[in-house]
């Protein structure tokens, strides 16, 4: 594992799998939580780590999308660097034949997530 790559846990790989399902999609934390079926608190440290590595980028949703009286949501998207890194990490997990290679591994993000 290169130093620029985080430790790949099951949760980490699940999150990457969710982003790799549709690399152009922008999703917010709750959607990812739903898609991968992890507890809500586990997602944000992972997202922060990937963001720090440049694998993910994030932005606030447009003011137009913000409903009245609701805080903005943070939308995350995988970067080209992240796609390469994630593909490599997922492939490595697959070849290891580990417990990660389950159908759950590429969870589908629900429609209308942005």
């Amino acid at each position: 594992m290169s130093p620029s790559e985080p430790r790949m846990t099951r949760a980490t790989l699940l999150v990457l799998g969710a982003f790799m399902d549709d690399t152009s999609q922008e999703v917010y934390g709750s959607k990812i939580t739903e898609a991968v079926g992890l507890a809500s608190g586990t997602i944000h440290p992972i997202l922060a780590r990937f963001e720090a590595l440049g694998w993910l980028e994030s932005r606030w949703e447009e003011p137009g999308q913000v409903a009245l009286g609701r805080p903005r949501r943070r939308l995350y998207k995988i970067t080209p660097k992240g796609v390469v890194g994630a593909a490599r990490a997922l492939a490595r997990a697959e070849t290891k034949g580990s417990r990660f290679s389950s159908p759950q591994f590429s969870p589908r993000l629900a429609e209308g997530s942005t």
Partner: protein
Amino acid sequence: MNEQRVPRWATSVQSVDYVTSIVRDEVARLEAELSLPLSALSAVGNHVESMRHRSARVDSLGLHLLPPAFYVEHCIAKLRAEIVGARMVGRPSRRLRARVGELRELLIAVVDITANVDVAGELDLPFELVSTAQSGARSGISCLDRISQALESIHLPPNAEPRSDAEHGHPNRSAEWMLQVTGRILPPLARDRYVEEFRGELYYLAEEGANLGAQLAYVFRQVGRLWSTRRALPEDLRYRARDSGKVAASRNQPAIVRAHYFSDVVRAYMDRRAASAIIRAASSNAKREKVFRRGSRGARSIVQVQHGRSGQKSSYAVTSGRHRR
């Protein structure tokens, strides 16, 4: 089609219960009615797959677009699971609607293809097989329409009780307050962002109908992982200061700080433009951010500038007295 609407006299809670029972019944009926047609669809699908390798005509007629029976079954299972775990307080779950929509599209595709193409003739299959799949898909669509109609009818009748905050999509105030307070675990630069992000998700939960317990559970889970989130932040967010920031240094001795992290802040501090600054002290307790303010008994001035080999300022020494947060 049977009109299955929420009675006008129903309260909001009664309307949700009523619709949930309708939807459960309809899904059970859908499963029963599609049991045989899905077997037929599976047989047709298998034949299409075997014929595709032999004849390009199968693709040209669009028969390969027939939805696979196993996927339709999978969608029904997901729909059932969604209803079992549905939180339809205040309004139907959006995911439930999405599942219904997806399944309806699949069944419409079955009806369209079997109605427009002579599937039995083209594939040399018994006509009954195709007609069973088609008629089953039609009754499935009717079931789904009834489900959609029932979901649409979740509304507040004119004489309904006023809705709670959760039904309006507002989270509980205690949960929101707790997020605001515990967000202080995060460093100042990242705090506002993450607190707003968490609040946004709390609103999402409330919109989905999560009750106080679920909202507090969300908050506790977030709080439990705030230190992990903090550790995962990039270095500059963890330690770099805002211009309006504060000073951090080691306790009783001049602290060596890394200039390249804080050059802007230190410059502002030295020019006396900023009342205070945050500096990461490269001392034994470097990881602790201690807050000093000018004029307090904290860091009062930068007394020493060390130059690196290239002549650039590489570090600063900061005097510090007793620290104060």
